[in-house]
């Protein structure tokens, strides 16, 4: 292994005339030159140039004069990489060139003592490592805060949808109770039971009215609506979405050309995207890929499966390459309180689906065990 290290005095750098280059031995190249009007020969060898061959690597320089020196060293097979740095003592140091990160340095068997004292390379490696650690820390912190914030906002944002769901399901149970009361009456039980059945029926009617009232209030609740361009708000919030994913989960974007003008409630809509990304992250665990893509759908005839009217729709797809959702759960995951995560509340996808429905769109989930999960949000495009 041969390496060449150059240490230059900055003051001399501009005055060097590298007219004479002598190759002394296999292990040492010395430079004999002259400053303008002043012979520097051996006396300044160490002050001006110290070329020691240890590796078959040479360092890239930032000055023409060094290139000139290198050009004259034709007898050495040199590869120019790395940089020369300016240090506080006025010297330019060549640096260990082939190492771009502290991890690489360690893998190459290097430690700080492998570097010449004052060599800025190892300091740069340390600093870069520290700063990367800092970024990672803040990324994790951002994730925790985002999740905490999402955890607080989501229930409030979804309150109306959940009220409607609960009222609907509550009415189903009430209907079942009412029908059972009818059946009991048909069995011809003793007269003493009649008054109890009557009480049950009255309670069912009253509770049903209450459920209707809740349902009406919930369904009549209007989001604040605004027009927005999806790609723009996506980019504005990318850091939050990225922060939601761990370092080893990649977020890929595949966006269609042109703007996607939508109408809706931006915070609730962003909450839906965050929910789906959060689900993808939990499905992936430690590593994997989440891709967010957009497309435009021109629907000439109504789509009965998705309950979409003819028109133009944006399709926002979030796809993960995780383990997928078991088939028995797939049709259930957009229902409230159904969760694949055990401890989850099971409100996220239900509210995302409800949001899409309210916007005259739809939400579709495609998944099978081992093949990841794809969530498509269909939302009507509006005129710019």
């Amino acid at each position: 292994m041969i390496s060449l290290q150059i240490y230059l005095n900055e003051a001399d750098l501009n005055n060097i005339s590298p007219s004479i280059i002598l190759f002394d031995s296999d292990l040492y190249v010395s430079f004999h030159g002259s400053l303008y009007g002043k012979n520097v020969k051996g006396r300044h060898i160490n002050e001006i140039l110290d070329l020691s061959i240890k590796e078959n690597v040479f360092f890239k320089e930032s000055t023409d004069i060094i290139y000139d020196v290198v050009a004259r060293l034709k007898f050495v097979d040199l590869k120019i990489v790395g940089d020369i740095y300016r240090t506080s003592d006025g010297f330019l140091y060549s640096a260990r060139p082939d190492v771009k990160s502290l991890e690489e340095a360690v893998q190459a068997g290097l430690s700080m003592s492998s570097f010449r004292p004052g060599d800025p390379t190892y300091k740069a490696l340390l600093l870069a490592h520290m700063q990367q650690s800092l970024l990672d820390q803040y990324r994790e912190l951002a994730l925790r805060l985002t999740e905490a914030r999402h955890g607080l906002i989501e229930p409030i944002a979804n309150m109306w949808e959940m009220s409607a769901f609960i009222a609907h399901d509550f009415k189903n149970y009430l209907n079942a109770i009412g029908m059972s009361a009818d059946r009991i009456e048909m069995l011809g039980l003793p007269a003493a039971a009649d008054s109890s059945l009557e009480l049950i029926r009255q309670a069912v009617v009253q509770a049903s009215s209450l459920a209707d009232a809740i349902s009406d209030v919930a369904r009549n609740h209007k989001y604040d609506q605004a027009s927005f361009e999806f790609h723009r708000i996506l980019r504005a919030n990318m850091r939050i979405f990225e922060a939601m994913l761990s370092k080893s989960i990649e977020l890929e974007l595949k966006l269609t050309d042109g703007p996607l003008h939508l109408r809706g409630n931006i915070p609730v809509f962003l909450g839906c995207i965050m929910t789906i990304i959060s689900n993808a992250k939990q499905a992936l665990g430690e590593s994997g890929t989440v891709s967010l893509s957009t497309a435009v759908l021109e629907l000439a005839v109504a789509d009965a499966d998705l309950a979409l009217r003819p028109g133009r729709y944006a399709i926002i797809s979030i796809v993960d390459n995780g383990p997928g959702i078991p088939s028995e759960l797939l049709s259930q995951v957009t229902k409230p309180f159904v969760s694949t995560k055990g401890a989850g509340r099971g409100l996220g996808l239900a509210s995302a689906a409800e949001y899409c429905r309210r916007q005259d769109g739809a939400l579709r989930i495609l998944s099978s065990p081992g093949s990841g999960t794809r969530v498509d949000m269909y939302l009507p495009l509006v005129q710019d």
Partner: protein
Amino acid sequence: MYGLIHLSFRSFVRERLGNSVWEQVVKQRELTEEAFVSMSGYSDNITIGMISAAAHISGKNFNEILEQFGRYWIDYMSNSEYAAMMSFAGSDLIAFISSINDIHKAVNETIEGTKTPTFDILKVSDKVIIIRYKSERSGLLPFVIGLLKGLFEKFNVSGTIAPKKAGKKSLEIKISLS
């Protein structure tokens, strides 16, 4: 102190003194997650408060806890996301101690307001290393002794560590290798 110390101390207490001790420390010192952002700087009072509480709750001496923690710190860092940095610092005791100042400089340049100590090697012979430890903080000698013992374990060496000359904010420590 920076949050990494707090993270490490939490881990130390949980592992070495038990979860219940840590839970009591958290309760007593009213600690929140905010005190555990590893690359943020915090008031020394928080750190000292944690250590005092852990010592009090576990019925151990403050300095004893501090030394054990210093020893643990080396092990913790060597197995954390900073493992590469620990390897980069050197593969033997002297190289490692020589590198600490540079690591601390990087810490200081990265985290505003940190005050890291310096470790200068004054003398090295086959069996004896004399270092000078300088710090803005006082009372952390047991932690430093623990650190050095941790380094003994890391580099598989044995010997004694003896504080020598004490200055106002510095201390010479003699390491005699056996």
